[in-house]
């Protein structure tokens, strides 16, 4: 019997903090990232080993994209975008490990039936995490907008329309459009990952039921696991790239409206930046 719970399930209470299984998933992803970073910092070499290449691969992929599309100030927000990407990617892929979602405690549900409460659940299958990430992204692009535009300029950009007499009509529309960014960012990631979890659970339940009839029962969940690997990557990429796009737009709007002023206090990078990994001139 497939048991689907939209909200993350409570595991135990830690003082005022309720620890849920999706929090364990997020914690595992964070610990894996920290361990990889520690290993990478200690053993980084000019000629990368296989392990180093494995860690560098997603980072270089996204750094290349950010460098190509993020404008001249891409270095300012590249760490944030790459961190979001790697964290979401790892959180999505950890949910595909054996035992995640299938090993847990048997508890009685509200209707009296025994249900499985897994110890670990996909971190992004909890709206709290995706909403939190979307808010981080939202605050970041507002901060970059204020940094490039100044607080006054940013508020003018947000609240005052052109022509000015259209402000009462256009400002609510603009505010709704801005707010929809956060909701769509969080809902998309949550919806895709949660749907993937439900799909995998359903396929496992169906194929387990037909295990002795259909020899392909082992093969079918495998196909969906591979698909989830791809979807996990695509969703992480989309989330990170949208965050980057919003930040780029927040900075670019400044260029359109106030080309003579710059509040960021940093010089833009030269347009002819050397390619990543290319030999740097030494002085």
């Amino acid at each position, binding site marked *: 019997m497939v048991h689907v719970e939209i909200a993350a399930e409570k595991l135990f209470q830690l003082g005022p903090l309720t620890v849920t299984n999706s929090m364990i998933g997020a914690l595992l992803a964070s610990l894996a990232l920290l361990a990889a970073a520690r290993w990478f910092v200690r053993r980084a070499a000019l000629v990368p080993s296989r392990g180093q290449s494995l860690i560098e691969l997603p980072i270089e992929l996204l750094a290349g994209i950010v460098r*190509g*599309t993020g404008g001249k100030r891409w270095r300012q927000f590249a760490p944030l975008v790459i961190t979001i990407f790697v964290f979401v990617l790892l959180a999505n892929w950890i949910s595909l490990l054996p035992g995640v979602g299938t090993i847990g405690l048997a508890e009685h549900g509200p209707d009296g039936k025994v249900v499985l409460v897994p110890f670990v659940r996909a971190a992004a299958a909890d709206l709290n995490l995706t909403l939190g990430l979307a808010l981080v992204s939202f605050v970041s692009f507002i901060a970059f907008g204020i940094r490039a535009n100044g607080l006054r300029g940013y508020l003018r950009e947000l609240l005052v329309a052109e022509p000015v007499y259209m402000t009462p009509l256009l400002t609510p*529309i603009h505010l*709704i*459009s801005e*707010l929809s*960014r956060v909701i*769509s960012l969080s809902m998309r990631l949550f919806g895709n990952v949660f749907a993937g979890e439900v799909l995998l659970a359903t396929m496992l339940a169906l194929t387990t039921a037909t295990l002795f009839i259909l020899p392909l029962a082992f093969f079918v969940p495998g196909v969906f696991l591979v698909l989830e690997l791809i979807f996990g990557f695509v969703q992480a990429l989309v989330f990170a790239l949208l965050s980057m*796009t919003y930040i780029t737009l927040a900075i670019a709007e400044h260029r359109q409206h106030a080309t003579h002023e710059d509040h960021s206090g940093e010089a833009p990078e030269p347009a002819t930046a050397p390619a990543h990994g290319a030999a740097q001139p030494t002085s």
Partner: protein
Amino acid sequence: MSRDPKEQGPRPANWAVAFDLGLRLGVSVAVGLGAGLLTDNWLHTSPIFILVGMLLGIAAAMYTIWDVARQSMGR
């Protein structure tokens, strides 16, 4: 030698924006409706602000399309 950007096809960021656009249209209308519903419950003026919120949400969805198209052309 660098290639002409037009020959390189759509950029990954453009794919992401395309992924985003469909959902944002729906979310814009939902946000407008939700705000209208809350305002109506607060002021007991139903259904005035639900209608106003819905119209603003639809307008925000149109604005989003226009904004994304403008930004894409500007890139």
